């Protein structure tokens, strides 16, 4: 499916795009990028996987990003049936208790990748089956991949 057709199908699911902050862009990226409000993330993801036309059954990359003011997660999805790719983005301005719905019930591979994001960005995932640190020790303080993380001993700042 072309990016235009994908955009058409996805916008059909949300009759009020302003209410869920549904936005599409292809600027500065090779894939169609969809951003949505955190509350509607799970609904969109469920539809992307289970709708026959989109059928995004392969979550191949899950990235946590510190955008400066906002924290966010970027999901890269591919369909092994139709071989099209889409990128989903979700952001929050809450830096103290950032939380999104888990997608590990839709794609089991997300379980480990979400734990990694929890480790390094402190983003919680609601309904995650086993949300604990994956790489860092339990007692580690701070979230190393955030831009405001400081470690005077171990980090060389140029």
């Amino acid at each position, binding site marked *: 499916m072309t990016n235009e057709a994908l955009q058409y199908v996805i916008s059909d699911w949300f009759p009020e795009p302003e209410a869920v902050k549904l936005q599409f862009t292809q600027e500065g990226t090779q894939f169609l990028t969809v951003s949505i409000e955190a509350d509607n993330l799970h609904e969109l993801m469920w539809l992307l996987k289970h709708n026959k036309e989109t059928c995004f*059954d392969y979550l191949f990359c899950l990235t946590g990003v510190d955008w400066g003011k906002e924290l966010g997660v970027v999901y890269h999805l591919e369909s092994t049936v139709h071989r099209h790719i889409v990128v989903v983005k979700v952001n929050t301005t809450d830096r103290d208790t950032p939380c999104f719905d888990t997608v590990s019930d839709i794609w089991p591979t997300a379980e480990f990748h979400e734990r990694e994001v929890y480790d390094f960005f402190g983003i919680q995932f609601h309904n995650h089956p086993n949300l604990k640190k994956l790489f860092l020790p339990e007692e580690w303080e701070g979230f*190393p*991949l955030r831009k405001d993380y400081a470690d005077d001993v171990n980090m060389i700042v140029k």
Partner: protein
Amino acid sequence: METAILKSPFKSEEYFVNMGPQHPATHGVLRLLLTIDGEVIKKVEPDLGYIHRSIEKMCERDSYQQIIHLTDRLDYLSAHINNEAVCLAVENALELEVPERVKVIRTILDELTRIASHCLWWGVMGMDVGALTTYFYGFRDRELINDIFEETCGARLTMNYNVPGGLRHDIHPNFVKRVKDFVAHFKTKLPEYDRLLTGNIIFQKRTKGVGVLSKEDAIAYGASGPVGRGSGYSCDVRIHHPYSALHKVNFNEALQTAGDAFARYQVRIQEMWESLSIIEQLIDDIPEGAIQVATDAVIKLPKGEFYQKVETARGELGVFIISTGTKNPYRLKLRSPGLSNLSLLNHITVGSKIGDLVAAMATLDLVIPDIDR
């Protein structure tokens, strides 16, 4: 007899066993926390991070040329392919078209890397299930590829032969001859692998029906590489998203449908034959021409997001660069095949014995630095 066992006065009870981080079958510092009942596995929980170096954070401070050096240290058995992934991402972002000669040399070296990695895997796979001889056979043949790499790239493991825009320097004059010699040599040795291990009845009993993964689960758990293809899931990045000189060659995707450890084993053996075929198709006419297109000394990517996926010996490696237009990436994510493949270990081993866990894990072919980035 059965009722006698059922009425046994002993109680069955679950307990923990610690496997690793220094266990020989985990091939590196991976610790598995096993919940077992007798010898039956109830749960496998990996404990990671023993060698985490936070390469993604280091990348945010480094220039694009420096980042390539860090990617060697991910999956060190696919070092050349990792380097290429970053180079391709940077070249695509800069809209740089590299010369045909570069593409062909990169693909030949990719496939040599794959054979070398599979040779090592084949050796340790045999060792994990109790066939020590394979280790020496595998290392003997891998050594010949390492010699080729040493002569052309200057290093045996961490090649750093790719630079954004091309190759660091031209291939060694002996390169073509040595590669051809190796292909001829390895074609006589691969059937030997089959005679020694594949047909061995003990080996087959240890691997057939062990660690079964269905195609649906392979996709859902994000399996890639031989792990996915052993379950009949067509996931070869070289076929679906070809890069470098792969559009010039014909090869078959190695696919098996059984989904067990033996199927994954067969996929890798088949892949070595396919890699030999790719090398043979390219080695005779490496195009003449430049080995580099000039880039700025300080590479600045345009503002935007760039994703590049390649097929390493272990599966799909993804490099995701978010650039704000400066000389460093704002965020660089490395999607490693190992982490996704490890995440399905619990799923395929629950209910089996500890010995089967070792056999199943050997066919996942985990490299720990690739998981602990």
